């Protein structure tokens, strides 16, 4: 009885939302009919039903393969990083670089250098790797140190601790990573399909359909993409739900973790690790080009970019365009980051206070994650124009979801006993949040911030590319049209470097705050 009631409220809320959508869509209230009613979308889907199977199959193949490869790499890398903590610092630059790579910049390069399904698989895998790797590392490093101590006392080594303690405690975290990775894989594949010139795949279908001015079709494709991603999301959410109960600590660990585990490393070796972290992404960049044997005209090595930017005849004009673009892109990125993060935090907190609201909101949130932005943009432009508000909305929509998932996970991991302690002393729900839940989820807030920084930059660039015609996003797109390969590589490299610098800033603040609070960094 209680179980069915628990589901009745969110179902009712969803039904109300769908009803409002239907009425608003049917009456063409939003942007003069750019948002069709649900029934109109469904009728469109039915009429186009013969088109879908092949497109869906192609997208499933690419995103599924990318999902498996990206997550496998993510988990393996995560375990490796926890077993050998120094490696995490050596690979940090590369990890962040992979995460911050703007898909819109590398899609043309991938479809140029790789053939067939590969560009799609690579883009899908890239969307999964970082999220899952981070989730794995967080999960493994947040395990209960008392259980690890027990194994050590009985003579067990790192590997045994990994197997018996850390893996178990990391499972919910890894599953929550997979949850975020699933829509990422679908979107990555669709983006590569959209640009790559293949015949099949939802992205290719979307491109052909864009010119028809039929919103029903665009929304139909979005709905199908959402269903695919939503199913994958649901599977991992369900698994995570089942596992989280079995691995949560019953009581709270009161011992303060030793200081970041850095005691063993000398200043020299940590300096070396830092240098490696900076060099490694460039090394990979260079190796990628060398291994694929892409002609030098198209592919620029790091040295090629420096040459282009400082010593070529086009250097001065390139610098001017780049600085002007940066000036347009950076301020709005900062604002978008703060907005996205605040939104995610407010949402995660309210998910504790009003669980019903969360369950009703979740499907809507998922739609914003899986609806390809190329399909959403016409609607957004009609609603919001081509100004700052559009850029902000796009940025919030690409940032809040991963941040929210991490935050919600952190909040749900707070041991019940601690919360009940506050309640027992008569604290209200708000007081309990302020005193227990929010401070306890600090490592997750920082992890979410780190995750959000590169995405904020990406969001702004996407909006610039698709709607406002300003900044780095537009510069990138224009350079693609002019075959200005030097600029394509420069913008891609610069956006990655910027993301890494911002990321590093967050890490510095994070270390200070968490150390003072006696918590370990969720790295």
């Amino acid at each position, binding site marked *: 009885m209680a179980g069915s009631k628990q589901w009745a409220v969110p179902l009712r809320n969803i039904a109300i939302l769908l009803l409002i959508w239907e009425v608003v869509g049917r009456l063409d209230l939003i*942007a*003069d*009919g*750019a948002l069709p009613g649900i029934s109109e979308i469904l009728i469109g889907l039915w009429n186009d039903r013969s*088109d879908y199977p*092949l*497109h869906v199959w192609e997208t499933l193949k690419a995103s599924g393969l990318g999902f498996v490869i990206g997550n496998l790499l993510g988990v393996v890398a995560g375990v490796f990083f926890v077993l050998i903590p120094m490696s995490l610092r050596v690979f940090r630059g590369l990890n962040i670089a992979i995460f911050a790579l703007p898909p819109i910049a590398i*899609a*043309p390069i991938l*479809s*140029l*250098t790789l*053939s*067939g399904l590969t560009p799609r698989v690579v883009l899908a895998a890239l969307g999964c790797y970082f999220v899952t790797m981070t989730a794995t590392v967080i999960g493994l490093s947040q395990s209960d140190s008392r259980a690890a101590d027990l194994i050590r006392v009985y003579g067990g080594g790192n590997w045994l601790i990994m197997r018996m303690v850390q893996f178990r405690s990391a499972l919910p975290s890894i599953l929550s990573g997979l949850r975020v990775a699933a829509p990422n894989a679908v979107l990555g594949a669709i983006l*590569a399909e*959209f*640009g*790559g*010139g*293949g*015949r*099949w795949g939802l992205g*290719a*279908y*979307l*491109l*052909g*359909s*864009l*010119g*028809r*001015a039929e*919103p029903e*079709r665009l929304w139909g494709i979005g709905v199908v993409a959402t269903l695919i991603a939503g199913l994958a999301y649901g599977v991992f959410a369900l698994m995570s739900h089942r596992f989280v109960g079995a691995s949560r600590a019953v009581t709270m660990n009161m011992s303060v973790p030793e200081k970041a585990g850095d005691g063993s490393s000398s200043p020299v070796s940590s300096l070396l690790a830092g240098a490696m972290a900076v060099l490694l992404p460039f090394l990979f960049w260079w190796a990628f080009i060398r291994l694929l044997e*892409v*002609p030098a*005209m*198209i592919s620029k090595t790091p040295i090629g970019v420096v040459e282009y930017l400082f010593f070529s005849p086009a250097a001065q004009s390139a610098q001017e365009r780049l600085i002007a673009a940066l000036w347009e892109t950076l301020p709005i990125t900062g604002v978008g980051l703060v907005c996205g993060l605040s939104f995610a935090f407010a949402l995660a907190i309210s998910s504790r206070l009003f669980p019903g609201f969360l369950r009703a909101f979740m499907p809507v949130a998922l739609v914003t994650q899986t609806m390809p932005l*190329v399909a959403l*943009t*016409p609607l957004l*432009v*009609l609603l919001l*124009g*081509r100004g700052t508000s559009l850029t902000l909305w796009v940025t919030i929509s690409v940032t809040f979801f991963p941040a929210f998932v991490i935050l919600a996970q952190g909040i749900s991991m707070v041991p019940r006993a601690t919360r009940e302690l506050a309640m027992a002393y008569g604290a209200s729900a708000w007081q309990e949040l302020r005193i227990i839940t929010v401070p306890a989820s600090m490592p997750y807030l920082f992890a979410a911030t780190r995750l959000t920084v590169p995405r904020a930059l990406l969001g702004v660039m996407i909006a610039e*590319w*698709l*709607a*406002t*015609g300003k900044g780095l996003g*537009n510069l990138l*797109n*224009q350079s*693609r*049209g*002019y*075959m200005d390969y030097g600029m394509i590589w420069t913008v891609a490299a610069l956006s990655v470097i910027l993301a890494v610098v911002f990321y590093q800033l967050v890490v510095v603040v994070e270390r200070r705050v968490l150390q003072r609070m006696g918590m370990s960094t969720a790295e």
Partner: protein
Amino acid sequence: MDMKLSRRRFLGAAAAGAAASAMPFGSFRAMAASPFAMQASWINDAEFAGYFLGIDKGYYAEEGLDLSYASGGPDVIPESTIITGRADLTLTTPDTTIKAISEQGAPFKIIGTQYQKNPIGIVSLKSNPINKPEDLVGKTLAVPPVNVISVEAMLKLNGIDKADVNIVPYAYDPTPLIKGEIDASLDFTTNVPFTISQQGAEATSFLLYDFGFTIFNDTVVVTEETLKTKRKELVGWLRASRRGWEENFVDPTVWPPKWADSWFNGTGRTIENEIYFNKAQQPLVESPNGIFSLAEDDIEACLSALGQIGINGNRDMFDTTLLEEI
């Protein structure tokens, strides 16, 4: 993605009733034919009708070519595919090609052109018509970022300050135009007006070509290396493609419906749209000197228009000798 002239494809074409008697020889010869790859500049639509027809009827096979056809998309820079060797021949916009030759020393040669007149133009609604460049002053015009320099050139040629026109990115979707969020867009005039009419509005358009920006489009481009090593194949490709285009234009309404379940399957576009496209492009493709021809004064007009936007090409970038061998 690649559409090879395979046995299955041949059987499919034969089953569709297309030239059943001529096919067996074509497909027989295809087995010993030399592989040849072409990269198109966009997704499968009527823009490439001549090639689809040539493939289906075995014209390439008759020339000893085993043609593989790759469709394009927004991220596919056609010239890049011939640099990397993924294609032997590609269709490009002459502005990017000539810019790449003159500024980056790219080893390209233009050996023909599909469109004598570039089909891109300014499309607007009859209810808010923009019939000439002057009408654009104070208006919002959506332009794919690739084409911004072309539009700016056309404005300059007509004495209009580009600062007087609000240029925003165009994302290949005519919805903002139909809803009045923008006043005009730059697109293929052979294509978009149909979509607009389907939405119950009426479109009007003019070609950039007719207002001084006299350039070709879908120029046939190869690398100098290919020109040296595969001359015979290139001439064969030009001959087969010309046959395909000529037959297609005998009645432009005939072929698109036949491709509903093959070339146009799943593109998300309608056959009526392709028929409209095919009819509209006929006067832009056909030439008294034969399809693909590069007449001297047309080359000159193309070069001088590009010179207006700082792209400095010369006659050496074109090689018209292959056309003479057809």
